[in-house]
């Protein structure tokens, strides 16, 4: 039970079958192989090996990881199909997927930009102004709506521009975070 030394799992044969994931972190895609044995895990990727003692805390989706003795408290929360990892206040958006998804997604991704854009509320609040209506032509960067929350107003703008195809909310409406406010259809330019 002393620290360091050879990892316990490496010596035994009790480790479960490895799992393979495709991970996207800080703009990089990596395929990793995960091994877990009791309170120990190790990860192999790109010829490297990372290992840690782990323990799930009773206090939410939180893990205590000891990596070479160094103590880290890590929260992992799930968003829409992606994860967010928080380490001492620093946040890391991470995607963890089945390797098969990679192929499917790469096809999809290419098609995405032409599908137009949706403008969503970045936070819950009140729509204080709508600057456009269906049929309006908007430029990239043009302001389309103003949301107020916590005494501050936030101007939302179009990313690519196009023609407003749909406006789903009215002025003075309360909106939830992520709620779709309007859709913009791309135009040939």
């Amino acid at each position, binding site marked *: 039970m002393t620290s360091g030394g050879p990892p316990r799992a490496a010596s035994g044969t009790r480790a479960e079958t490895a799992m393979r*994931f495709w991970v996207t972190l800080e703009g990089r895609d990596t395929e990793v192989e995960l091994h877990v044995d009791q309170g120990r895990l190790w990860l192999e990727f790109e010829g490297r090996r990372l290992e840690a003692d782990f323990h799930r805390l009773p206090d939410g989706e939180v893990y205590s990881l000891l990596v070479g003795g160094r103590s880290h408290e890590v929260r992992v929360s799930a968003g829409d199909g992606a994860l967010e990892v928080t380490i001492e206040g620093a946040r890391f958006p991470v995607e963890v997927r089945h390797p098969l998804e990679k192929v499917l997604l790469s096809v999809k991704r290419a098609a995405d930009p032409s599908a137009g854009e949706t403008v969503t509320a970045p936070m819950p609040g009140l729509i204080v102004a709508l600057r456009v209506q269906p049929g309006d032509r908007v430029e990239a960067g043009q302001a389309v709506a103003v949301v107020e929350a916590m005494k501050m107003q936030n101007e939302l703008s179009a990313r690519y521009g196009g023609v407003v195809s749909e406006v789903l909310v009215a002025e003075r409406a309360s909106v939830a975070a992520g709620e779709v406010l309007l859709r913009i259809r791309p135009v040939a330019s």
Partner: protein
Amino acid sequence: MPRLARVLIANRGEIAVRIIRSLRALDLTSIAIFSEPDRAALHVLLADEAYPIGPGPSRESYLHLERVIETALWVKADAIHPGYGFFAENPTFARACAEAGLTFIGPRAETIAGLGDKLAARAAAARVGVPVIPGSESAVESLDAARAVARRIGFPLMLKAVAGGGGKGMRVAADDAALATAWPLASGEARAAFGDDRLYVERAIARPRHVEAQILADAHGRVAFLGERECSVQRRHQKLLEETPSPALDASTRAALGESACRVAREVGYLNAGTVEFIVDEDGRFYFLEVNTRLQVEHPVTEMVTGVDLVAEQIAIASGAPLSFGDSPPAPRGAAMEARIIAEDPLRDFMPSAGRIERVRFPQGPGVRNDAGVYRGYEVPVFYDSLLSKLVAWGADREQARHRLLGALREFVLEGVHQNIAFHRWLLTHPEFIAGRLSTRFIEEHFTAAALDAGPEATEVALLAAALHAREERLRVTLPQANGSSVRSAWRWSDRRRQPGRVRR
């Protein structure tokens, strides 16, 4: 001398909780009021009594004057503590309290009104020989009049609203052309914000420090100076970190500043707690700015070094009692710093964040005080300001206070909403901050979102944790739907710069 047995707190959040604590230690009954979304707020849970006051928007609840006064009378309150914000600096409210037979815990209504006029306050300071920033003595009537002042004091200069506050109606002009552009903008903003478009002109100080003097004045003619606070670290007039003593002042400047603050207070017949704000320039000269006729958000740093409970003093003063320490306030001991923990995202231009507090673990230990207004499971409402907690550390000297604050920030767990803990850790380890070289321009000069990037060790830990979690929650690892919807939503988080709704403010 009125006996104040039952005190209604016309506020919410951390400051209402703060006031409840002093009332409790004084054996007085604390009475909370709450808006509909605040039914489960911490101040409601901690108060002795709590009464509903209306719907979420402030104007219909905390800022609904008649309803607050009616409730105070209905529940037989003796006094009202306004906290900060809301009715704290509203002379009409202070007058309404008096008319209803309620003791307003704060300055006299006429003092609040008088000092609310920035030019009148400036004139009072000048009358008693306290330095003011060179500028117009009265409101300037027109752009031409402003130009005349500019010829006297030179550029750069500032246009300020007479009724000002919070940076509204304020514009810097570097030259005559800029002045011509700024004039209509500033007066328009002032009219929109205060219903009063009068402006005045002041010389603009380069890299100013914001240093304020805490004063207490009782009904027996005593005016005490309880040390200063340096509040230079700001972002758009929002203070982020405050400390005492100010690294900018030497002992003789501190004494002169404190003496000046007391002179202004005496000149206006000040009563109760107040803050006299000064600008300190790069050469260490101070200039009177304005008086805040209320308890300040950052009052705990003063409490940490003096041991004086400022809220308890406010209540004593309002009941006609003398200051607890008589003629000699306790000498400040050591140093204290306060980090405002705010629900905002430093990585997205400090956009405010609302939502449910999923997990908390507040820091503790020697020299640490954390005044939180939230708890685990609490839903941060969108109606009010985004201050979650004030984390304060005391040390025998500035370095110990800074190190303790850093340690406490490292211990601080607050998940579910975005907050600025990592930002404060960056700030407290910045060489210019450590050296005490502060100004109100600190953030714009030094901060970039990249400053918060974690190192490679954290990235590796994130990789480990994400893989582990994916295994534990196998269900989440699913193949994408044929229509691609699950894939699209996933991408929402994958790169900050590709957010569909970009935000500007």
